């Protein structure tokens, strides 16, 4: 077979015979590869694309693996070309035409480029210009959506679902008590979205109900809200004496701030205290208090409160160094004696007495438990009264019990016919003088000995060793010796809130000169210089703890209830 391949540059162009190619092979392979009988380097053509074969008068075109042909618009794998038929191989149109004399071949196929170059450089360059364009987000839509979200979630939801409205039940006392404990969480806990900070632990129980404290919108929290629970809170001072300190004219909120964390934030700087207390007489002429401006630099020496009347528990303050201070606690006791370690020992104890032998911290940690005879004294002070019979002891308590015990002892002695000679001032009786009467016996002996023992026990040996006693009235029965009532308060500096449990790093003797104290409370109490060993004023100092007024003193004085505010709260609740 011989085939004339006739190239036409583009559709409609005239034939250029110089480009004709006569191929005398049975098969013509078409493709870009160099081993193709018809090598065409054009985009769109495969390396080995198709093969042309003679089939009687026609030419059959077969696509090689991976390639396709196009007959009309249909993709085919094989096409038969009779005269006048066309098939498209890649970017070329192959058409079988009738051979003429000049061709000198069995078949003539024209090859026409189907279109201009498939790759349009100019258009491509233009498309590259915008190739990397970053599409900006829709700013207006984004702004609208975020704004709507903020408005709905943080305004509409808390407004509708949060407990914003003051409860109706708030106007009655019962309703208020119920409402305050009612938990309002609302949708999504929406009250939290407006909550400026954590509510203090004590107030959390009703803290989710905003209206518990915020009674009216845009009105600051009223003190009456606080006082509906804190009814017994005290004034700072007697308002009749110190009208400027009348808390009826103040709001609780001016010192106590809520929503500041787990503890209620309380104003504790001393500037407000010093405002009056640095010259207290100018605002409260009747005061007996001395002026103070700072613990470190300007604080008077302590004045302990000493017992004046042990039965009525009245106290009076004396300067710490006052030699004439009156202490009527009616107890004879010195720490010096009791802390002589080698001498004072509990029965059977190996070591001598220490502070803890008698002093035990009370629950709460602020003070110590009262010292009791039966627990702390009885081991040593056994109240024996008769050397011959040490097993007999006096009861600790009332003089009548003591008298009864004595009467019992001597009655038993009378039954044993024991005789108790009266004490004599001389051994020998002068010649001629009357003999002393014989010792009494029986009932007479019992009452005489009881009276005698009452006098000696109470006045001297047993009771009088520790207690202050009063002798009987002149002419009265000698058995009417009295043990005066005892009162030992648990605190001697009650104006301050000293906590022993906060000072456990100290030894007792670090503050209390117990080993040298030979009596009197005042000698045992530390002075302000002892405190200043560790504590400085508000601004602090090197190696010293900064201490403000409220570090030791309590602002609200329960002796003076806030009567006015209470009355106001009462009126409020009565509505």
């Amino acid at each position, binding site marked *: 077979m011989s085939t004339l391949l006739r190239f036409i540059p583009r559709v409609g162009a005239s034939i250029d015979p110089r480009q004709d190619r006569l191929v005398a092979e049975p098969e013509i392979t078409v493709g870009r590869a160099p081993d193709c009988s018809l090598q065409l380097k054009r985009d769109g053509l495969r*390396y080995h694309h198709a093969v042309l074969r003679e089939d009687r008068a026609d030419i059959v075109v077969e696509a090689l693996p991976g390639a396709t042909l196009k007959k009309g618009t249909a993709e085919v794998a094989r096409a038969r070309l009779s005269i006048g038929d066309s098939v498209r191989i890649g970017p070329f149109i192959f058409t079988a035409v009738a051979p003429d004399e000049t061709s000198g071949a069995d078949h003539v196929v024209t090859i026409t480029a189907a279109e201009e170059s498939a790759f349009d450089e100019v258009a*491509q360059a233009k498309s590259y210009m915008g190739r990397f364009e970053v599409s900006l987000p829709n700013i207006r839509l984004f*702004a609208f959506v975020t704004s709507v979200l903020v408005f709905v979630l943080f305004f509409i939801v808390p407004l509708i679902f949060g407990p914003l409205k003051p409860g109706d039940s708030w106007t009655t006392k019962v309703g208020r008590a119920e409402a305050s404990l009612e938990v309002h969480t609302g949708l999504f806990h929406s009250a939290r979205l407006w909550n400026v900070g954590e509510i203090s632990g004590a107030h959390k129980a009703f803290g989710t109900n905003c209206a518990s404290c915020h009674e009216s919108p845009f009105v600051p929290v009223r003190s009456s809200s606080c006082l509906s629970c804190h009814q017994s809170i005290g004034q700072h001072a007697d308002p009749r004496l110190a009208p400027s300190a009348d808390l009826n004219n103040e709001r609780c909120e001016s010192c106590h701030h809520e929503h500041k964390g787990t503890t209620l*934030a309380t104003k504790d700087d001393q500037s407000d205290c010093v405002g009056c207390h640095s010259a207290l007489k100018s605002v409260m002429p009747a005061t007996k208090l001395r002026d103070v401006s700072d613990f470190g630099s300007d604080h008077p020496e302590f004045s302990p409160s000493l017992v004046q009347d042990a039965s009525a528990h009245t106290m009076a303050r004396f300067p710490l160094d006052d030699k004439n201070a009156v202490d009527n606690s009616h107890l004879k006791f010195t720490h010096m004696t009791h802390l002589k370690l080698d001498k004072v020992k509990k029965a059977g104890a190996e070591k001598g007495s220490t502070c803890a032998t008698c002093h035990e911290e009370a629950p709460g940690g602020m003070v110590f438990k009262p010292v009791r005879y039966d627990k702390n004294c009885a081991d040593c002070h056994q109240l024996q009264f008769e050397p011959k019979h040490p097993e007999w002891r006096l009861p600790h308590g009332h003089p009548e019990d003591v008298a009864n015990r004595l009467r019992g002892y001597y009655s038993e002695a009378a039954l044993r016919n024991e005789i108790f000679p009266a004490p004599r001032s001389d051994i020998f009786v002068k010649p001629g003088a009357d003999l002393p009467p014989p010792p009494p016996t029986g009932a007479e002996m019992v009452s005489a000995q009881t009276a005698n023992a009452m006098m000696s026990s109470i006045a001297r040996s047993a009771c009088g060793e520790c207690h202050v006693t009063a002798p009987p009235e002149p002419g009265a029965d000698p058995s009417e010796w009295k043990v005066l009532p005892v009162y030992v308060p648990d605190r001697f500096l009650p104006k301050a809130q000293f906590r022993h449990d906060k000072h456990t790093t100290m030894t007792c003797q670090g503050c209390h000169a117990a080993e040298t104290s030979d009596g009197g409370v005042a000698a045992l109490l530390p002075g302000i210089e002892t405190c200043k060993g560790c504590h400085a004023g508000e601004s602090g100092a090197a190696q010293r703890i900064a201490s403000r007024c409220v570090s030791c003193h309590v602002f609200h004085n329960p002796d003076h209830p806030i009567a006015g505010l209470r009355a106001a709260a009462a009126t409020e609740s009565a509505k």
Partner: protein
Amino acid sequence: MWKDAYYGKVALILSVAAIFFYLIDHPSGVPNGGSWLGYTYGTVGFGLIGWLAWFGIRRRRYGGQGPLEGWMSAHVYLGIALIVVATLHTGFRFHWNVHTLAYVLMAIVIVSGIFGAYTFLRYPAMMTANRAGSTLKTMSAELAGLDQSCRDLALTFDDETAALVVAATQDFGGRFTFREIFLGRSVNLVEGATGGAIARLRDQVGGVGNAQPAEVLPLVQNLTKRATVVVKMRRDWRYRAQMLLWRAIHVPLTIALVLALTIHVFAVFYYR
């Protein structure tokens, strides 16, 4: 720099004064926005936010007081001072509420604004350096020319190789990623289609194929050259995107911030 950073000094004095008063103030309890100093910070912050937001409207108007350049300078410096004042207003107390929301929105707006100011200071020069005298148009034309010649040169090779080269001419590094736009990581075309085509061509010489080095070399060179042009064009577009995109955060969140701020003020006065 407008008038030796006059507003920079104003902002610095404002910030230093705010920090100074914060350090010497001892409010009862913890520092918070409800103390007198806290209210002062809040009022100053509220005023600043209002004024800074007004700039967005002011800059779209002609005329008015003072040159826009001065307003711009003040907007940037006072915006930075605002974060000091507002942080002190919070007393460093943050919770899940509308108050912290307003603060967070403000912080995002300011940070995006600082980024925007940075792009406007640095990027024009970086863009000029990146283009190195050419323009996006000439770079596009150069790229199209290189692609054309790559396709032409590829016709010599077998179908698979040619397809790889054609794919390489369509390799622009894919979509812009967050990493690329905001962290400036350039794409690596050698890991993509371009790299695949180059590797295949390398194998053609002495490897699977029997192509001559003279046939392969120009194609590899062209592919490499076009990759360089693509990276340059991409970088150019990245700069443009960065100079535009920060505003897509700055402006909408400013509107949300003004709203959250209004709710914040309403809420704290509703529950006094």
